[in-house]
Structure formats: C-alpha cells, structure tokens
C-alpha cells in the first residue's frame, strides 16, 4: 500500500472510518478540529451518524448513547474540553460501554495554550472523573501510530467494554508525516449479549451505573477491577531500545519519544550507555517491566512536557532501586534533542557527585 503524507488529525479520522466508525459527535477545539471537519463530510457521504454537538458534554453523552447500542462511536477533543467529559467517562466505565475518545492535548491548566503539552497524563490515567475506574490509554508518537493505535483503541474498547482514550498532542495532530493506511487488523467483537437493540424476543435490558445496595455496588467495582487486571496482563504495551547494556534508562511517552531517541543516539556517541523504555499503553502502565529494568540501571530519567506527572508512576515502579530524575518543560516549545542531551548530562553529574 502507498505511503501518503498525512496530518495526524486526518490520520486519526480516516483510521476511525477504516475501523468501522458508525457515529461521530464533536465540538470544535484547536488543535484537533480537523478531525471533526473531515468526518463531517465523510460520515455524511457514507450515511453514518454525525452531529455537531452543542457542547463537549453533549458530544460525549451522544457517544455513550450510540455505543450503548453496540455501535462504534467516537468523539475527539482537547484538554480543557476533555475535562467537561469526565463525568460521562466515569459513567461509561461503570456502564461498561465501549466508547473511544481522542484527546489531542494542548497546554493547561484552564484554557491554556494551543501548543503541544502532556499535562493531561494524570487526568487520563488516574481517572479524571469520580469513583474507582480506569480508562485504557494509548499514546502514539508518530502519524503512523496515530493510525495503528486508533485501530487498536476501537478493538480494545469493544473487546473489554471499556472507554479507551487515544492520548495525542498538538504536535501529532498538526504535523504531517508519511504513513500507510493498512486495513483494520482486528476481529469484530460480538456485542449481542449486552447491546441495546430493542427487546426483541427477550426481556428488556438496562445499561446503568447505579446500584441500590452496598453489596451489589461493591461486587460491581470488584468485577470492574478484575477486568482491569486482565487488561493489564494481556494488553500492556511498551517499546525498548538499547536496554540490554544500559546504565541509564530514559522514559518518555507520546511525541517526546521522538526526541529521546535522538538524544540516546547522541549520548551513546559520547560514550554513555543510555537505553529507552517508552510506554505505549499509559494505562495499563508497564510498571512490571520498568521494575525489572530498574534493577539493572543506575539512573532512570523521565522526560515529559509537563511539571512531572508520569514520573510518579515511574517512581512507584522503580521502588527505590535506581535514582529517578525528571527532565521537563510544561508548554509548547518542547525540549530539543540538545536540551535533553545536556539535561541528562547535568543529572548524571549531580548523581555522580553525590556518590
């Protein structure tokens, strides 16, 4: 199949169509608006469901409604507007409805700024809404991965009946890069046992999140977390580079992965044994593998475009086996390869000085 030069936002939109998207509901916000623009035309041509929703609140709840019928449904948004969606995500998790949400992050807090940032990590992986729940969160680092992980988001959402988020950022949304649209590679999931289709030849069924008794509520949450455990065992995904002989482990996700790879190459040239672990699924997080690697390295350095969010999960995984440092900047003019290279050397100097 031919490579095409395509923008991340369009890649996500076309990949969703290839994955069998049946309904899209959205509200404009930079830097992801192209997704809704592209789909407004494509969905109409295909006779599929499309609504320019009156708000992000409405959009995510339309997705919840559509997905409750078993349809593949999606909304896309950015940071401050994703905050508006947290209630529905909590419902969808409790309801076990397979919705797909794309967050093309901008910088926060508040309205923030439209340049790329990774400040929504905690909101995405810790559950930004109320109660005990977890999303599945996938973080692409290239336009090709925007396609591949959009496919996977639909598959995992429906396989596990759990809301799934593609966590991209303004850089991935706006940039163009050659990519290949392969066919949707996953099997279709049978949803006939739970989807709302009208009570034909059976009793009515309800999708709801409320329990009327303490016991049933407890059991419901235990069941949800047993499912999350299964997801963790089956679906945790990460990438590793040069970890075999590494003394120093760099950890970054999403678009920052690109920069730490180049920094690793540079630092290796300078004689430092640097390796990389890049979580692909931020939830479930590859804690086990980070724990294993931490036993073999002296330093773990987390690089992220925020004030330090993933670093806390890395520390929990390392469990004190290695020194954990953070190299970061909160907004936009993301860390250049040179800055990362220098920052890593600074960290190491301090680290050695303290030995």
């Amino acid at each position, binding site marked *: 199949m031919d490579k095409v030069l395509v923008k991340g936002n369009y890649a996500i939109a076309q990949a969703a169509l290839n994955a069998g998207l049946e309904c899209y509901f959205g509200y404009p916000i930079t830097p992801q608006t192209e997704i809704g623009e592209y789909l407004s035309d494509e969905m109409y041509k295909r006779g599929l469901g499309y609504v320019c929703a*009156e708000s992000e609140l409405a959009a995510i709840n339309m997705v919840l409604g559509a997905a409750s*019928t078993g*349809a593949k449904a999606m909304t896309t948004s950015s940071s401050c507007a994703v905050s508006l969606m947290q209630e529905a995500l909590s419902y969808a998790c409790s309801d076990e409805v397979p919705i797909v949400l794309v967050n093309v992050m901008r910088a926060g807090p508040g309205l923030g700024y439209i340049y790329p940032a990774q400040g929504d990590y905690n909101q995405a992986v810790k559950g930004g809404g109320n109660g005990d729940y977890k999303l599945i969160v996938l973080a692409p680092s290239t336009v090709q991965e925007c396609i591949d992980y959009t496919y996977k988001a639909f598959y995992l959402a429906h396989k596990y009946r759990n809301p799934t988020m593609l966590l991209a950022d303004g850089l991935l949304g706006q940039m163009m890069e050659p990519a290949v649209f392969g066919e949707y590679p996953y099997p279709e999931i049978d949803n006939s046992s739970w989807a709302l289709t*009208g009570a034909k030849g059976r009793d*009515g069924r309800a999708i709801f999140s*409320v329990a009327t008794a303490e016991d049933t509520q407890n059991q419901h949450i235990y069941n949800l977390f047993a499912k999350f455990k299964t997801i963790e065992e089956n679906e945790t995904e990460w990438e590793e580079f040069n970890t075999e002989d590494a003394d120093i482990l760099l950890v970054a996700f999403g678009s920052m992965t690109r920069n730490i790879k180049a920094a690793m190459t540079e630092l290796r040239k300078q004689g430092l044994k640097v390796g990389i672990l890049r979580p692909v699924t931020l939830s479930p997080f590859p804690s086990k593998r980070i724990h294993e690697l931490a036993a073999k390295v002296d330093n773990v350095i987390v690089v992220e475009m925020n004030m330090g969010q993933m670093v806390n999960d890395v520390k929990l995984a390392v469990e004190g086996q290695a020194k954990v440092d953070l190299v970061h900047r909160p907004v936009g003019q993301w860390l250049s390869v040179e800055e990362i290279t220098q920052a890593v050397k600074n960290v190491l100097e301090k680290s050695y000085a303290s030995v």
Partner: protein
Amino acid sequence: MQVFKIPESIKKGSKFTFCPGCDHGIIVRILAELIDELELKEKTICATSIGCSVFLYDFLNIDCIESPHGRAMAEATGVKRARPDKFVFTYQGDGDFASIGLAESMHGALRGEKITGICINNTTYGMTGGQMGPTTLLGQKTTTSPMGRFTGTYGYPIKVAEQIALCDGTAFSARVAVDTVAHINQAKKILKKAFEIQLKGLGYSFVEFLATCPTNWKMTPDEAHERVRNEMMNVYPLGVYKDITVEDK
C-alpha cells in the same frame, strides 16, 4: 371477563417505588399501555434520567440507558443516530430536562431529532427532598426558597412546552395533566400523537406532564391534585402548543 390488567411492557413482578400519590406511576402506566398498543416494545430504546425518574428501567420491560444528569437528550440522540430504525424516547424530570439539561433539550429540539421527549413537571427536585427547581412557582416554598420563590432573588419559572414549541425542529409540543380520569385519557391520546409523529419521522415531539409531589409538597394526594388544578394550570396551561400535522392541513 378481565377489565384491567398489567401492561405487557411493565416488568413482571415489579412494584413501583414512587411515593403514595405521586403521578409518576400513572404516567409510567400510560407509557406502558402505549408501547403495548403501538407494538413498540421490540424496537424501543429509552434514555432515562437522574431524579425520581432514574429507576424507570426497573419498571419497564424495554431496553433502557441511564443518562447522566441532564444528558438524556444527548444519549437519545446518540442512540437514534446510531440506530435510526429504533423508537427512542427520553423520560426526565423538569430539573433534568429544563435546568441542568436545558442546552441538550433545546438543541435536540432545534435539530429536529426524531425522538419523543417526556418531561415530568412537579415544580421541585423530588429525589433530593424538595428544593427549588426551574419550574418552581412564584411564591412556592421549598427547602432552598424557604420564604417562597420571589423574582428578585430567584427569577422566573420556565414554561417548557411553550419554549420547545418555539424551536423550528419541533413537530409537536403539548402539556397535559393526570389529575382526573378525563385528563388521564386526554394525556394518553396526546402522548400517542407524539409517538406517532416520531414513527412518521416528522421531527421532535414533546409532552410535558404536570405532576404531583405530595411528599415534598407536604400534601395528601388529593390536596396535591387540587394544587395541580388550582395553581399549576394557571401558570402552565394545558394544551397543544405546536402540531405541524394540523398546521400543514
């Protein structure tokens, strides 16, 4: 001879948990009868809401999705756009429909979603114990308007059926009551019309039910129905506010 039986669309063995004298029970029964009469059970998906209406799925033997507070119209829109061949209605209180969910309710009507909206107006937040809602009448005492609702602080009640009738996507909007047998029969006829308009795909159809809340009004069921007649109907007159099938003729 059997003169009275439980509709097929009511769950077998289920018991309504509404307070004595609450009109929800009558309205749910009307709904169930119509679902039976129009043979809709096998194609119906209902978006329930938050409030006293939340447990509708415990009583009706149809497919239901519980919507977050105020979002029933959004859920119903999602359902209908995904499955246009289904019969979709929302069942909401006035707080859900006209306060927290007003944006969704209005925009759904403006889009002309082929959905039926049902709003139960009892002039208070019943589930949480009788606070002031968007439809609370002027002068009405509630736990959050203890001196009575006065406009200087609390503003004015919303006339839902009239507002929805103003939306160009609305095909049908009416207000009914269930305080007397005559009104119950009329309400059923009007709700049937609203359902038929959806089935014909003519646009959004809406019915507002004036209803009692004896517990929070601190009244007997009879007194509560008296209040519906003597106070509510003055502010919220019964009637059909829009019907494009009539205007077209």
